């Protein structure tokens, strides 16, 4: 844990050394809530019926969906990006030469981006709250385990993509497929119940679907975690199975990279 934190801290120090860009990214994040506020206000009447049970206000519904999508995007992309950067600069070779466990290395390489996306999500939620979003602030604590599960459920995709980077020097199509499917079929802009026909069944395979089904009732309607236990359980099961499989795949990729000489080749 100490080693992962050291890596996260270094990434934070490096990113915050670009002071203007760092401050600007938060400023633009706050401003980005304004158009969402107006567009969702215009669609409030149309969406009011279909979002029942997941908050009564389309603005809050949409903000929570976008925050979750940003967190998913960071989770899926941070590790492969971190690995690609570390490989191309040669820092990976230096880090692999230290007695650091693989899990600490992976957590350290991706941790900063994921934590930053959570911080950005909180800032966005506060900005939305200031604009009148109906948020059950007292349930913020209860929503943390759900967000953590959303991150964990998408970690296997990040690990599989990182395995591709290690073995073949390319990310492959997996992260794009997952992000595209999650954006349009994961319930970010509209509940999955409004998706027509067989396409809706695809959303059943997306962890974000269950994450948002659990998150919105808790964060927007103030329900307890037990009220959403079914979706939380599915997320947990999904995480357990895919995480184990992805770790096996990553170890195999590492062995392959050592055999063909891809590891730390830049």
């Amino acid at each position, binding site marked *: 844990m100490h080693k992962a*934190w050291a890596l996260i801290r*270094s990434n934070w*120090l490096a990113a915050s*050394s670009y002071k203007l860009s760092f401050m600007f990214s938060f400023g633009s994040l706050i401003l980005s809530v304004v158009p969402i506020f107006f567009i969702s206000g215009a669609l409030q009447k149309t969406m009011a019926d279909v979002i029942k049970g997941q908050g009564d206000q389309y603005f809050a519904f949409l903000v929570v969906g976008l925050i979750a999508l940003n967190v998913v995007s960071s989770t899926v992309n941070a590790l492969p990006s971190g690995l690609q950067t570390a490989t191309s*600069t040669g820092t990976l*070779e*230096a880090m692999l030469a230290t007695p650091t466990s693989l899990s600490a290395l992976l957590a350290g390489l991706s941790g900063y981006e994921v934590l930053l996306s959570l911080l950005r999500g909180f800032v966005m939620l506060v900005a939305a709250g200031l604009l009148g979003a109906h948020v059950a602030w007292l349930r913020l604590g209860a929503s943390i385990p759900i967000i953590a599960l959303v991150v964990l459920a998408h970690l296997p995709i990040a690990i599989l993509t990182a395995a591709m980077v290690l073995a073949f020097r390319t990310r492959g199509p997996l992260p794009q497929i997952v992000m595209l499917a999650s954006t349009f079929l994961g319930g970010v802009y509209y509940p999955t119940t409004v998706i027509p026909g067989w396409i809706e069944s695809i959303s059943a395979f997306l962890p974000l679907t269950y994450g948002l089904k659990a998150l919105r009732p808790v964060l927007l309607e103030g329900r307890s975690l037990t009220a959403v236990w079914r979706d939380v359980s599915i997320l947990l099961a999904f995480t357990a199975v895919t995480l184990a499989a992805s770790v096996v795949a990553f170890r195999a990729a590492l*062995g392959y990279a050592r*055999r063909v000489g891809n590891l730390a080749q830049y």
Partner: protein
Amino acid sequence: MAPTGATAYVTPAVSSSPAVVLRGLTKSFPKQRGWRAMFSGKARESVRALTDVSCEVRAGEFFGLLGENGAGKTTLFKILATLVTPDSGSAVVGGHDVSKEPSHVRELLAPVIADERSLHWRLSGLENMRLFAALHGLRGAQATRRIEELLALVNLVEAADRLVSGYSSGMKQRLLVARTLLARPSVLLLDEPTRSLDPISARSFRQFLREDVALAQGCTVLLATHNAEEAFELCDRVGVLHRGRLVATGATPELAREVGEDRFAIWIRPADQAAIDTLAARGVMREVKVAEPDAEGWSRIECDLRGGLDGAAEAIAFFSLRGVSVARCEPVKLSLADLLERVLARHANA
């Protein structure tokens, strides 16, 4: 005897116990293939990077691996650093096999990644050291003490709080070494550490490596280089790698003498061909190349002189007796290409 022109360094205490043992180490890498080849059903071709490499490096020794680009030096280092697995043979570091006990090997051996990009440029030197201290498991006061010690060793205390992006190449190289020394490794791998340095910085960096790293820290050092002068200046023993094969290994003074130290350039006037032929017939001179006289009539002769300096004295005396003026006589530094040519010729004759 130290090679002529080499900087005189203090010799470290070399133990008789081996720090690194290589036995029949062989490694091939698969070749990239096109779409047609992929579906042709033919077996995938491979490139042999190392073939049956065997040698021992003793504890405390400064061992040089000399070879041209693509000779297999980096592959060998990556195998030792547990980043590449060998196809066959074994590499043992401090009694631990790199394939079977990689984590033990990583505790003993550290590669100095000579590429400056492997530092975090947007962090200060101190922060770079803090990060790697943590990755090596050093914490709190222990980490702080070790970092201070090493920054002082590499003379970067004053620059410690500056961003690495503002460091010179020499400073970055010294920081890379300090970073590697954090965990007190017993074996250091240096892969062409002076390649990005100017000649003056390279010389001072070599002195730092020999005296402050190898000697003061008591490390066994393996240095990969394509610079014959650097290898002969720094190393106790040198191994010559050529196309993945270790074609020669020996103590630096012996190897230098055997393959290059007898090579001299002599300036004479006039170019008395009969005198040269006599010296060649007596076996004093070999492989003689006589250049055209310059505007003042001086001809440069490049040749191997039997017995090195003794042979030079004999040749000068002979020329003087024949009334031939000798203006200058000096050893010729062999280029890597010349050295390889000689080693390979000797290898073929053997």
